[in-house]
């Protein structure tokens, strides 16, 4: 059902877990729909230096979460905000049609984390 890249990120997600000193956090999805994704980012000087995720979901959801975290590392907030689901699908090679929503969820999680970061920095200014 899934290609090797998806299975690699599902089997050994390197970005799973919690992060210390989170600069932005986005939680999206709904357990009743089968996916909940939480993306945490660390931001330094406008750049995302680290990203971690926690996900309740299927293979594709876990792989997409890991992919999002991998892709955003080193990107500026603007570059990260411009990412789309296609970037995740491309990174993973491909996803079955019924699992494309997992890549959308990954992007939404990331966007929410970026918004959260902006809100945090705005309130501290």
């Amino acid at each position: 059902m899934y290609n090797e890249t998806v299975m690699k990120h599902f089997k050994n997600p390197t970005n799973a877990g919690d992060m210390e000193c989170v600069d932005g956090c986005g939680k999206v999805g709904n357990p009743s729909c089968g996916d909940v994704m939480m993306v945490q980012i660390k931001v330094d000087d406008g750049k995302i230096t680290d990203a971690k995720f926690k996900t309740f979901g299927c293979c594709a959801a876990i792989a997409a979460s890991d992919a999002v975290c991998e892709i955003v590392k080193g990107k500026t907030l603007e570059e990260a905000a411009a990412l789309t689901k296609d970037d995740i699908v491309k990174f993973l090679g491909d996803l079955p049609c019924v699992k494309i929503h997992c890549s959308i969820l990954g992007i939404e999680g990331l966007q929410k984390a970026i918004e959260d970061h902006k809100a945090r920095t705005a309130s501290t200014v």
Partner: protein
Amino acid sequence: MTIYLDNGATTAVDKEVVEAMLPFFKDKYGNASSMHHAGQDARKAVDDARQKIADALGAEAKEIIFTSGGTESDNLAIKGAARANKEKGNHIITTKIEHPAVLSTCKKLEKEGFSVTYLDVDPDGLVSPESLEKAITDKTILVSIIHGNNEIGTVQDIAGLGKICREKGVLFHTDAVQSFTKVPLDVSLLPVDMMSISAHKIHGPKGTGALYVRAGTRLKPLMQGGSHEFKMRPGTENVPGIVGFARAAEIALAVDVSKITEVRNHAFKQIIKEIDNIKVNGPRDEMRLCNNINISFANVEGEALGSYLDIDGICVSTGSACSSQTLEPSHVLLAIGLSKEIANGTLRMTLSKHTTKEEIDKAVESLKKHTEKLRAISPLNTVLENVQ
């Protein structure tokens, strides 16, 4: 190494079954409708097989219609009986926990003008006789209730439910695909008018099933063609499949199901001992299929857990249909009152006569490891009441 715990999906074909089938591909390949000796050899094989299946159910040979499997049997029973009896009424009763072969067939009949009542079940998946009795009206022509549930293993009291239908003069069909040869079934004693069974769930070949139809029951065939199968199911008989089905039934009836129950109970015990925050779905006693395990694991998604088990060589299925084309959680789990979240974190394991306690121990070890791994990366922290 494969540990196959998905025997509710399909089973390994017995060696003796394959051997019984082989001559009918190679040497005795005649068409059972042909007059010559090659055809008559095939005819005799089909007749013998029909008698064996009839014996397995306590039926008469003329009451057995061979089909392509459980789905066709369910379609023939429900559409066939509904369409043949529509002058008597347009109301059908079924349950919320039927196999899609029954549910989708009833939905189709609703579009044809029939009205369908879908009965609720209790938290164990049992249909109450009172709710059935209450639902029957003077327009009711057919009741269809699954015998052994394919997901949570609930075995309905079809004697009691059938009796209500009999007293009210309503036809009673049961899908016994999962229970055939696991639970004693004798239609000479049971008030059942139609019963669906299938070969590939009992170590027989795929593509063969049967519908028991009590003598005198009016049905309309689904297809038009020759006069095969008492004019109820046209098409050249699948002789090797039918022969294999009969041999599989003979072998399966001789299996001591208490041994499967023992391994199943060992599995329940080990899973409950090793893994916390889980919920066993379905009944825990004699009202459960001997080979069925269905468990929800809090904060874990079923497909992910099933996929990790698969990497370890262990085949299970998700209680939800999430791994297949639909993303909706299982209608059976929702019907017994599970939330969508918990239904999404459910696995079904179905054993066979070949399953050993050693295999179960390995599967439980893998299950424990991967449940812990997935919980460690889960953002949820739901606590389940461990219902046992």
